[in-house]
């Protein structure tokens, strides 16, 4: 485990000077900081990508500038930095009638949910913070903390729009957990394990060993999972909790400044988590698509991030193409379309495995 490696390394380096309690604390904090740094940098990049992709789709040019100091740097590269700075420096307003402790708690909780999911995401054979043997289950589990915090945010704001947003998000995320989980069961059935590393290792040996190409039922499971994941992270066409033309900004209506930034950040972090799970479960994770070629640890990080990045790009692309669903249609799609398909898929995969693979 990563913490053990770091602890051993630190003990070897500083064992004489500090007690082992401090070193244990330090060796736990270092990966946390690394994840935090990763999320921040990743969020800046994805925000930039979102700005540019949306602009190009809409025939605009997006943030542009002539150089540092003017506007947002060359090609607007500094725009996300400027956005982050703006959010940091903004006045933090807590409405007088809000439920103060809960109002303050909500953004942190949503961020924690996204943050601790990163612990179990593998970037390489040994590049993982905690190689849990129920990694997949763990990610699905802690991902649900988001629901709680969205309801908290909606309730604590003491605003009718926020309440609507919170209630919508509760119904939506809880419902879509089910098809998402059921589609991942296909992966678990094929790989025979909940450990993400083992699932990835199961897909070793080039692009055709990936689970998505295992049998004709899996691509359907992948699509169902991807769309359900889209709904879980509240992205268009499922952005009902914050649908800006109906609910102003939904659960985030009363938030400003840094607190709002946390919602923003965790939305993007969640996007990464669900895409990473899809990449690990269906697209071979950090495995190179060319069997054995380009599969050093550095390459494995590259493959993992590029597969995830592609899925994130598809999410952005979908967002700027589609209108938003209505709240009852959302439920219809979940219970009447995805759930039966996901269940049938499980049977299909099971039969296929029995007939062809055994």
């Amino acid at each position, binding site marked *: 485990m990563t913490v053990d490696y770091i602890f051993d390394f630190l003990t070897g380096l500083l064992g004489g000077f500090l007690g082992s309690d401090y070193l244990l604390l330090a060796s736990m904090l270092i990966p946390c900081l690394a994840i935090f740094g990763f999320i921040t940098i990743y969020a800046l990049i994805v925000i930039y990508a979102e700005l540019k992709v949306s602009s190009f789709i809409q025939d605009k040019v997006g943030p542009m500038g002539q150089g540092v100091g003017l506007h947002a740097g060359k090609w607007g590269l500094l725009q996300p930095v400027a956005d982050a700075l703006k959010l940091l420096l903004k006045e933090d307003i807590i409405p007088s009638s809000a439920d103060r402790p809960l109002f303050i708690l909500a953004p942190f909780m949503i961020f924690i949910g996204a943050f601790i999911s990163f612990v179990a995401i593998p970037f390489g054979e040994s590049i993982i913070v905690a190689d849990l043997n129920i990694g997949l289950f763990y990610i699905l589990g802690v991902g649900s903390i988001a629901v709680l915090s969205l309801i908290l945010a909606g309730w604590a704001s003491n605003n009718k729009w926020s309440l609507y947003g919170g209630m919508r998000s509760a119904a939506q995320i809880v419902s879509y957990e089910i098809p998402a989980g059921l589609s991942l069961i296909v992966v678990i059935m094929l790989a025979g394990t909940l450990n993400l590393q083992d699932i990835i290792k199961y897909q070793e040996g080039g692009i055709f060993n990936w689970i998505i190409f295992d049998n004709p039922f899996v691509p359907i499971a992948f699509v169902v999972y991807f769309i359900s994941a889209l709904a879980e992270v509240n992205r268009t066409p499922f952005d009902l909790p914050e649908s800006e033309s*109906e609910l102003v900004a939904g659960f985030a209506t009363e938030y400003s400044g840094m607190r709002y930034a946390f919602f923003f950040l965790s939305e993007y972090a969640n996007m990464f988590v669900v895409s990473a799970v899809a990449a690990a479960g269906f697209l071979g994770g950090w495995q190179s698509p060319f069997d054995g070629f380009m599969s050093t640890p550095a390459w494995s990080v590259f493959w993992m991030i590029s597969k995830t990045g592609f899925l994130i790009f598809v999410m952005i692309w979908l967002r700027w193409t589609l209108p*938003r669903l209505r709240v009852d*249609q959302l439920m219809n799609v979940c219970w009447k379309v995805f759930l039966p398909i996901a269940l049938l898929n499980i049977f299909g995969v099971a039969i296929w495995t029995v007939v062809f693979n055994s």
Partner: protein
Amino acid sequence: MGVVHGQEMVLNIGPQHPATHGVLRLQVKTDGEVISEITPYLGYLHRCFEKHCENVTYEQVIPFTDRCDYLASMTMNFGYVVAVEKLMDIKVNDRVQHIRVIMAELQRIASHLLATGVFGLDLGAFTPFLHMLRDRERIIDLFEMTCGARLLYNYMWVGGLSHDLPKGFVEATLNFLDYFEPKIDEFENLLGHNKIFVERTADIGIMPAEVAINFGVTGPNLRASGVNWDLRKDDPYSIYDKFDFNVPVGQGIKGTVGDSWDRFYVRLQEIRESVKIVRQAIDQLPKDGDVHQSMPKKIRPPKGSIYSRTESPRGDLGYYIESDGSDTPSRLKMRSPAFTALGVLDEIAGGWLMSDVLAILGSLDIVLGEIDR
């Protein structure tokens, strides 16, 4: 188990809300997501248009008409000058008429582009909105080329126009139309036939023809309900009887006649018809003719009153002018089409979900500047 009745909640949508197209306040009674009653409160944008008009001369009214429906200023000017010209019995020459028709139809395209785009935006589709704004931009460039203003033109004057067409306008317009026509199909595919969009709009907010007529709804909203009523055809003013165009009527392709999708689709079809009219008007445009030819030196209509209607992008735009023979109108009332269109909201949108209500509001294409005057 019986039906659970929750407590009703009163919710204010607006005056500041992203979906109210201005400063409109809708007080709604909601039971969960279902909205049972809608009470619109107007007047946040009231600028005393009618009172102003009683204190300025007839030509000075024109800039104020611009500001009523700021998305279709040309047609607002057009309606006003047609009314005053009828009152004064002025006949303007053919070149002026043609230029006016070209401008009004270009304005109709621009206004419908924004209406359909914003309708998409209300449903969460951002990209079609910006594509439509992009093409509206090109139309506005044409207007700027003609009269120097981009939004509030003050272009049509009683008895003429403020400027003649500039050199190169005809070519620029034809270029634009050639570029623009394929884009309409693209809008239709990107937004109109998208399944999510269809699900959100078809069979939502159905407005039967009788309701529409009784509520005085006009323009594309009325035509979407299946009533073939277009003042350009049924009571032709200016030279609209010279042109060959169809009046698109709602047919309920995706749902029922008179639903939100029909209102969207009728506007899209009208854009195509307007393109046809502009092409014909440019073909027939007389080469010579002074645009200031019939302009009276002093506008003093004879004593009397007139109610004159024209077809603005939003419907029947009526001007009721009472003249007492002086150079200021004694009473000028604008019958604004969006005003009546908003009046029907409670009737057709009560009982729908919150998202639907905002979709229906978007499909009615209201402009608050014109409602509040």
